[in-house]
């Protein structure tokens, strides 16, 4: 492998990835959903599988599976004053940790991390936990999410409605 190829494929550093993930979690906790949406590329996908180790979002149902168009609609709805499933609004607190780079290729870096999310709404507190897989592109202040997969540990459990993005 040549030095040039190594450099191209080196991808983002672990600390760059971690900073980005912490920034993303903060935007979600602060309900700055428009800014969160702006982190995604124009052809991004956002995916919360309904089954452990789910192979495809196309032939098995997903708790959420949004192409860019549906993700925009999801985010626009979140800011609607008539989103009754968010009246009252949820409050969330997220921790992102155990960040590892799983590989880099052609300007993309695959990042794996662990998360816990506490969601509080209408006198009930829910705990979510699982694994994030982010495919990140760009660099510096222009890091963008091309693909985000969220594997909830309880993805196949009976669940009350899921409104706030993971």
């Amino acid at each position, binding site marked *: 492998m040549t030095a040039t190829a190594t450099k191209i494929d080196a991808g983002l550093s672990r600390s760059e990835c971690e900073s980005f993930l912490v920034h993303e979690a903060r935007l979600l906790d602060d309900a700055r959903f428009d800014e969160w949406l702006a982190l995604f590329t124009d052809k991004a996908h956002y995916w*919360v599988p309904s089954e452990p180790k789910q192979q495809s979002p*196309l032939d098995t*149902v997903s708790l959420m599976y949004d192409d860019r*168009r*549906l993700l925009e609609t999801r985010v626009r709805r979140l800011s609607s004053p008539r989103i009754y499933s968010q009246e009252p609004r949820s409050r969330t607190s997220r921790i992102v940790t155990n960040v590892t780079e799983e590989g880099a290729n052609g300007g993309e870096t695959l990042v794996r991390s662990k998360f816990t999310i506490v969601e509080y709404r209408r006198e009930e507190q829910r705990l979510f936990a699982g694994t994030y897989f982010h495919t990140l592109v760009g660099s510096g202040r222009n890091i963008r999410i091309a693909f985000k997969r969220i594997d909830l540990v309880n993805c*196949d459990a009976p*669940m009350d*409605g899921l409104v706030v993005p993971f």
Partner: protein
Amino acid sequence: MQTHSNQDLRNAVQPARVNRRLYTDPAIFELEMERIFGVAWLYVGHESQVRNPGDYFLTQVGRKAMVVTRDETGKLRVLHNQCAHRGAMVVASDCGHAKEFQCVYHGWTYHLDGRLKAVSLNHGYPQDFDTKSPKTSMLQVPRVESYRGFIFISQAESGQSLKDYLGHMATSIDDMVDRAPDGEIEMAGGVFRHAYNANWKLYLENLCDAAHPWFTHRSSIDAAQQQSDEVYSDGTGEIAIRQMRQNGAPYSFWENQVGIWTYPNGHSYLGDYHDDKKLVASMEDPLFREYIGILEAKKGKEEVKRILEVRRWNSNLYPNLSFMSQFQQLRVVHPISVNRTVVSTYNFRMKGAPEQMFRNTISFANIVNGTGSLVLTDDLEIYNRIGIGLGSDGADWIEIGRGYLSDVRDEFGGLKGKNSTSEVYIRNMFDAWRGYMLGDEASASQMKASA
């Protein structure tokens, strides 16, 4: 827990209003489990889940854990998932294939039809201990029947046949299956299980409710209407957004162009309200053109015309099933307690249809049945609000009277709303409720219509 006489129960259902306690009283819930879920035909699964002898899957029927299987002779069996020895759950995997069922506590082993096959340490038992007796079997549900692949059970030894229970609504199941070019559908594509804190009856009451989308789904209607179609979609978002926009049909549309039909035993269906070329089989869409071509090659033009003219949205079979044929969706209601309900939703693949049709079924399921859907989450919120509202000791009665004066007889022995916003389907479910709970044969609204 307060007990109720039949007269109390009878008084709680008036022709156009019901007592709110029917949704909140644990004692009434217990009676419903016994008199409705313990007797009625209930959907438990689909034959494509148990193709071969030895195939099995677990399901929850009302509050009872059951194993659905196909025995060595090919006969469908439904067993309570309990060991006759100490009561432990025998089968622990959600689905699979087995030659026999063995309890891992002390090794009691059962045939696929539930009969006891072997007992470890079989000595010293009392004289009446009989390994051939039903008492030492996994308890079997007495009546199991299927209609075109849909498996139903009744826990009553005798009573109405499945055919009579379905009545005219069998045509909705026909519609589900007839749309498959090869005449067969299979369950596929995973399951959603969503939950809410309110009574089980609310779920079916909402699925034929043509008057709620305008209000309840306002946030997703607005967001979808404002969405630019220039933005990238792999097809998933397109289906979802078209569906959300259709929910924004004005009341004039619901009043004039959609119908609601109800039939004995509490069943009902809502007419299809879609006119989007990608949401109803139309020749304007290349995928539907391909599909209709395949269907015509298999069934002939005339039959295909008949099939596609059946335009139904949700068909509900009281008390636990709802399905829709256009996008091959099915939902099963599981009452957990008087104010907790879980709904399982499934999808079907139409054999012989283009694979993209199934992928659209998945996209559609995500938006109409998904636990994280932009639409369903507002329905779940409404159920929770009803749970909170009805649980409050305020007014005793709630209204189900919209369209009461304008319901009309239907040619197949049912009662239909003058238009789709009639609450006739709720009145009809309470007629069935009275039938199961009290043995009332004639119902207020049915009598009124024939008067």
